[in-house]
Each structure stands twice: as structure tokens, then as C-alpha cells.
């Protein structure tokens, strides 16, 4: 996959690959929403962010600071109104058109007319992947949904729906995985379990993950780096590297080492922090 | 209504359009004959003879003007109606063929395709008359009777001498017309009728109406151009400039008289033979729910005595 950095750019001109380039790179990226009544909301301004290939990066920041917006820009669901975003030498659109992005949305977005099993495989199928039945079942098992494969979304609790949405994106096995508060609706036990699962899956495939969360400990546990955004409009206020070795264990979760990281993030969030 | 005039409503069969056989009534109206007779005549246009019959039967209007067959069908259904004048003694209906067709008489239609209106008396007439034979009928809505023939889907159509014939000629289709009405088989044309109970109740108005109407027809055929203009005044949307109406009125004229004065001795006069002829044909064709008594169907009592009659 790292060979993809020498792939010619889509317009056929070979790009210079002399200096190692970030997998995702945002340059002075900004987005302004145009309200229906003409009023503007500046969601994001002047964001510079580089993410290396295979890196697990979390985004944290106050509610409404532009995390979802940034994720949508990377996933080509929104076009930035300022600056640029490049991913693996492509524009987000090109990467999306190559079906190399997987996304978990803030709301589960399950299709009410499809069973959980069908919801799980839908996106993979549409990306041209064939998902063997055993794989779907294994995924359901991981998510604790094995008894609900033939049920419909409205028969699931909020957390169960969100889990199904996570499974759907994981079955995609994409080069870039964008996850918007995937574990927000889960209890801590389930959350910890799925944190471990996600870490395991990520370690096996080493796909690049951009992960939005409100749980600082979740961010500290999972990430190589945590990016802290300030309140509206979103601006980068801290970029914390977490070097704890993989695979991280439950011991690490309750270690003073991680507690320190969390405290640092907490500080950055409340405005007492400094950029790393 | 003007002071001194009595309102009287008359329903006309407006399917599909103002008809040239109304000319006398419109002239009587426009030239003030009705007003002079103390009447304020209001016309209403209904979409079909059956409608005219029913609205007179239900008492919504005082007098109706419609084809004799629809009138008889209503009477056979128990509507308390009586005919008070046979405005057009002869029937305009007949068989229309493309000019030079091998159908020369009604006897030639056997096995041919004849297009006609659904459930109209014309197919019955066609088959019941002397020499009539059984064609292969093609049923369509009234306006399509002869367009079907134009489109080649039938060999002949039934239609009216003063309507389909000039229309077809105008569209460039030369046609021949074989009338259903003949000396041997006289068939009565459109009639004025009212509720039987009206005959004693509003006798004076009805008498005045018929007298003025007779005068209207006389006037109309004295000056056809003036009649066309009055027609246009009553129906401003009718295109009177293209000559069609004048032509149709011209065609109507011979139908206002009977060759045999014993059947129609004066304007509007009816005879038992005329009525029983049509009653027999329609009853034979299954159109009548019951067979009306000939004597009860009409009265000549309200007609102007010694009235005007066009020379044949």
C-alpha cells in the first residue's frame, strides 16, 4: 500500500516523490456553511493537518467545533470553501471514486427496510467486495449482534444500531477509515471491548484512521496522535503524539501514563493546553 | 323578465353544437317575436336528447326540443310528456357512403362495416326499414361516426344530411347520402314537447310560443343571411363567416316540409301514422321499455291554425 505514493497522479503526470509525503494533508482548509436565510456559519478555518499512512489519529474538540465537517471534507461529502485537502496524492473525490474511503457517520444511518445482515454487507457489496457469510457472522459476533442478523433496525436499541454501522464500515476494509463518534452511544464495557477490537483490526491492516470522539480516554487509548480543535470556528489548538507501544492493554488504560495523556488533552480542551 | 312577459324555459339538444334546425327559434327570439307574444324565452343547452327529455320530465324546464326517438324512449320509461309540435317533419338521418361506393341503397349494406353512434336509433332504423339489411356495425361516440369512415375503418356511416354531409364535403371527402326517411317509410324529425300537465296549466303561453316559433321559421327562410346573423348574435362563438351555417340552414329547408300533406298538413302538425311508424321501429329494436299509446303521445291542439307551411 505504501507503494501507492509513487503512483502517477490521476492526470498522468508523475508526481515528485523525493521527500516522504503525508497520506492525508490539509492545507489552510476552511469551510463556511451558507445558511438558508443567507446567514453564514464559519465551521472551520485555516486548518493545517498532516496524517501519515497507517496512522490512527483522533479528533477531539467541543461540540459544534467542526469535527464532523472536517471528516466530511476528507470523505468528499463536503467541498472545502478555502484551502485544499490531498489524500495519497489524490483529491478526496478521486479517492472516494476509487472506493478507498470508509465512513461511520454520527447517526447510524441504517436502512430501515433492510435486515441487519443486509445492512452490514450493503456497502461492501456496493464497493464490489464479496463478503462471505461467515465473515458477516463473525463481525456480528464481535459486535454482539449475532442474535439480531435477521431483525430490522427499528428492533435494535440505539447502541446496537451504532454497532451495526461500525460493522458495516469495517467490512469495507478501506484505505482510509473516517469514524464520527462511533462509540458514542455505547456503555463503557461494550465500548472498551470494541476499542480493543478496533485496535486489533487496525493493527492487523494498518489502515489510516481518522476518529472523532468525545471520550478523551478513548482517544488516548486508541490513537497515535490526538488532534484537539478549538470551539467554533474550528482551529487546531493541540496535536498530541502518544507513543505507548501496541497492542495496548487494559493495564495501559488504567495506567498513570495514559492518565497523564488524558490530563494533557483535558488541559488543551479547556484552553490551558499548549500545542505539542 | 321584461314587465308584461312571462318566463318560459326551453331546453335545446346541444350535442354537439348549435344546430341549424334551431334557426327559426333563434330568429323568433332575436327579432322579438317571443317578446311580442308576451314571452321571455330562456334557452338552455343540454348535452344530448336524453338530457333534454329528462329535464322536461323532471320539471326543470318547461319545453324541450329534441329528436322524436329520445322523446319516445322517455315516454316509454314513464315520463309524463307530450309532443306539441313537429318542428321538422322529416328526419335528417341517413346512411353516408364515400362517393361512388357500391352501397347504393340500404339493401347493399349487408356484411359491410357501418360505423354509428353507440346505442343510437340509427342502426335500428337502418336495419328495420324496407330493404334494410344487417351490416357489421362499428360503434363509436357520436362525433367519430364518420371520422371512422374517413380513416378507412368502415365502409359507411350513419349521419345527418345537414351536419355530417357538409362536414365531410368540407374535409374533402365526397359522399353520397341515402335518407332513412322516404315516402314509403316516413320518419318523424325533432319535436317540441312539454309535460302533459302543462298543457292545461300554461296553455296560453305554449300556444303563443308555437305561433311565434312558426313565424320565426318563416322569417328565417325569407332572409337566410339575416337568420345567420341572428344565429351568430345568439351564439357569438359560432363561426358564421365560413358559410357552413348558411349551407346547413339551406340543407335544412326541404326537411321542414312533408311531401305528403296528409301526414303533415301544416307547420308542426303530427299524424298518428308518423308516430306509430317510429314507435314500431324502436319497439322492434328493443329501445322502448314499454310501448306508448300513440294517441297519448302528441297533441296538435296548441298549434296555430292554418299555419304557414313551406311549399315542398
Amino acid at each position, binding site marked *: 500500500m505504501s507503494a501507492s505514493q509513487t503512483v502517477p497522479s490521476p492526470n498522468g503526470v508523475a508526481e515528485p516523490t523525493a521527500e516522504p509525503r503525508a497520506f492525508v494533508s490539509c492545507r489552510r482548509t476552511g469551510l463556511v456553511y451558507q445558511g438558508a436565510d443567507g446567514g453564514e456559519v464559519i465551521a472551520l478555518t485555516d486548518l493545517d493537518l498532516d496524517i501519515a499512512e497507517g496512522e490512527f489519529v483522533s479528533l477531539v474538540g467541543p461540540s459544534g467545533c467542526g469535527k464532523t465537517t472536517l471528516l466530511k471534507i476528507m470523505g468528499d461529502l463536503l467541498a472545502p470553501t478555502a484551502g485544499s485537502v490531498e489524500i495519497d496524492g489524490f483529491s478526496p473525490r478521486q479517492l472516494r471514486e476509487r472506493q478507498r474511503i470508509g465512513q461511520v457517520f454520527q447517526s447510524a444511518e441504517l436502512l430501515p427496510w433492510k435486515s441487519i445482515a443486509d445492512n452490514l454487507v450493503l456497502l461492501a457489496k456496493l464497493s464490489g467486495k464479496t463478503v462471505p457469510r461467515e465473515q458477516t457472522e463473525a463481525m456480528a459476533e464481535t459486535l454482539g449482534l449475532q442474535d439480531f442478523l435477521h431483525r430490522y433496525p427499528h428492533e435494535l436499541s440505539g447502541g446496537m444500531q451504532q454497532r451495526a454501522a461500525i460493522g458495516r464500515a469495517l467490512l469495507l476494509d478501506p484505505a482510509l477509515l473516517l469514524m464520527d463518534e462511533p462509540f458514542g452511544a455505547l456503555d463503557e464495557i461494550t465500548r472498551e471491548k470494541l476499542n480493543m477490537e478496533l485496535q486489533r483490526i487496525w493493527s492487523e491492516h494498518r489502515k489510516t484512521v481518522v476518529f472523532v470522539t468525545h471520550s478523551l480516554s478513548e482517544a488516548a487509548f486508541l490513537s497515535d496522535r490526538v488532534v484537539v480543535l478549538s470551539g467554533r470556528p474550528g482551529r487546531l489548538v493541540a496535536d498530541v503524539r502518544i507513543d505507548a507501544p501496541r497492542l495496548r492493554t487494559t493495564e495501559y488504560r488504567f495506567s498513570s501514563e495514559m492518565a497523564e495523556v488524558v490530563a494533557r488533552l483535558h488541559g488543551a480542551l479547556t484552553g490551558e493546553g499548549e500545542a505539542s | 323578465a321584461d314587465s308584461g312577459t312571462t318566463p318560459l324555459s326551453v331546453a335545446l339538444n346541444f350535442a354537439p353544437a348549435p344546430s341549424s334546425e334551431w334557426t327559426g327559434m333563434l330568429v323568433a327570439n332575436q327579432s322579438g317575436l317571443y317578446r311580442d307574444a308576451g314571452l321571455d324565452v330562456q334557452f338552455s343547452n343540454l348535452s344530448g336528447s336524453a338530457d333534454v327529455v329528462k329535464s322536461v320530465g323532471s320539471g326543470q324546464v318547461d319545453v324541450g326540443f329534441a329528436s322524436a326517438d329520445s322523446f319516445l324512449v322517455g315516454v316509454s320509461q314513464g315520463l309524463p310528456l307530450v309532443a306539441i309540435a313537429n318542428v321538422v317533419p322529416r328526419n335528417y338521418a341517413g346512411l353516408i357512403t364515400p362517393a361512388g361506393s357500391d352501397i347504393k341503397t340500404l339493401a347493399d349494406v349487408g356484411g359491410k362495416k357501418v360505423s354509428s353512434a*353507440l*346505442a343510437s336509433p340509427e342502426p335500428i332504423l337502418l336495419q328495420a326499414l324496407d330493404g334494410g339489411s344487417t351490416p357489421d356495425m362499428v360503434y363509436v361516440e357520436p362525433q367519430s361516426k364518420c371520422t371512422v369512415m374517413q380513416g378507412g375503418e368502415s365502409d359507411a356511416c350513419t349521419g345527418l344530411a345537414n351536419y355530417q354531409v357538409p362536414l365531410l364535403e368540407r374535409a374533402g371527402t365526397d359522399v353520397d347520402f341515402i335518407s332513412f326517411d322516404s315516402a314509403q317509410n316516413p320518419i318523424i324529425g325533432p319535436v317540441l314537447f312539454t309535460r302533459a300537465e302543462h298543457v292545461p296549466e300554461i296553455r296560453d303561453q305554449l300556444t303563443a310560443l308555437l305561433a311565434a316559433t312558426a313565424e320565426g321559421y318563416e322569417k328565417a327562410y325569407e332572409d337566410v343571411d339575416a337568420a345567420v346573423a341572428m344565429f351568430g348574435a345568439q351564439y357569438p362563438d359560432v363561426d358564421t363567416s365560413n358559410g357552413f351555417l348558411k349551407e346547413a340552414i339551406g340543407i335544412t329547408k326541404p326537411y321542414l316540409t312533408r311531401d305528403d300533406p296528409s301526414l303533415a298538413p301544416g307547420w308542426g302538425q303530427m299524424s298518428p301514422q308518423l308516430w306509430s311508424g317510429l314507435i314500431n321501429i324502436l319497439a322492434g329494436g328493443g329501445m322502448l321499455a314499454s310501448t306508448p299509446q300513440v294517441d297519448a303521445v302528441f297533441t296538435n291542439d296548441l298549434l296555430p291554425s292554418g299555419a304557414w307551411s313551406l311549399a315542398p
Partner: protein
Amino acid sequence: MWVSVLVIVSLFVLWELVVRVAHVPQFILPAPTDVFAQVYIKRDALLRNLQPTLVATGEGFGVGVVVGVGLAMLIAGVPLLKAVVYPVVIATQTTPKIALAPLFTLWFGIGLLPKVIIVALLVFFPVFINTAAGLESVSKGRLDLMKSVNASRWAVYRHIRLPEAVPYLFAGLRLALTVAFIGVIVGEWIASGRGLGYLLVLYNSTQDTAALFAVIFVFVFLATVSFYLLGWLENRLSWQVRIQRSQQS
């Protein structure tokens, strides 16, 4: 179900009473009992003329639904095509078909074709309008989901827009069903020697109002049955109804 039956029965009783008490003449409004008697008396004619009407209605309905759904899918989410198709479609609908009757016989002859065309022409419109509205009622979130895997236009239809349009489609089919029955009458009125439409014209011309109502009764009965059949189909097929039902329990 029994409530509907009760309502209908009581309406008939009311109607019968009004006619009997007020002595309404039959040619103005026949009593239901007279009408039912006519249904029995005219049963042969009714049965004979049922089949051609059903065939024309069925074929026209099928064609209309296919065209309606197809056209709606063609234009959904493509404003340009919408701008192209809409004016033409509106023209087909607002052109009064009765006015064109004589031309219909010239253009399409006098067989089954003009009837099927009229029915299809009437049917396709509510199906088209409703399906189009349904296809456009998709939420942004679901479209984003599809966009995220670069799903094809067809996949978006199949997995999102069509299921989303189902309740709209069924509302459209309900409307289409009733206009289908109207359409076949117009078609048989324009040209036909058979069918229930033909019987209507026949009994109208013989001013046999009770027999006319007998045909109307049969006709309304047919349409009502198909209407409830459609409801049954919706209950079986619609995901929305399934959810609503399971949430009531």
C-alpha cells in the same frame, strides 16, 4: 372491515328511505333495491361485458405503472431531465381526452389499443408524480452513505430511493387505480361494442336509469375490491407499514 360494510349498508338504507318517502321518480334517482334487481336481471349482459373491460383496464394499468415509475426514475435527481420531461407530461395530462375522441379513432383505430392508451395515459401520471416526489424525499444522510462508497446511480435507486418512495408509490397506485377505471369508460365510450362502458352508454340512451346504476354498482364494486387488494399488497410489501405495525404492539 365490518365497519365499512355497516357504513355501506346504512347508506343504502338511507338512500332507499329517501327515495321511497319522497317518491323520487326512478329516472332522477332509482332506489338501491331497484338497482340490485337490475343487477340480477341484467346479469348476463353484465358478465358478458365484464371481461373486455377488465382486460383493457389491466393492460393499461400495467403499461401506465411501468412508464410512470420508469419516467420518475429517469428524472429523479436530474434537474435537466426534469425540465425536459415535465412540460411534456403536463401537456399529456391537461389535454382533454374527450375533446380528442374523434382524433383518437383516426390515430389508433377502434380496437383495444385506444382503450389501453387512454388508461395508460391516465394511470401513468399519478404514479409518475408520486414516485418522483418519493424518490426526491431521501434524506441527505442516506445519500451521503451511498456517496461514500461511490455507489452508482442505479444502486442509489435500488437501495435508497426506491424503498424510500414505496409509501408515495402506493398512494400513487391508489389514485392510478381509480383513474384507470375512469379511463376505460372513456375509452369504451369513444369506440366499443362491448365492455361495461358500452353498457353505460346503452342504458343511458334507453334512459334506463336503474340499469345504468346497476352497471355503476358493478363498476364501483370492482374498483373497491381492487383498491382493497392494493391496500393488502401495501401491507405485505411496504417496510413502512411493517415498522408502524410492529411499533403499535
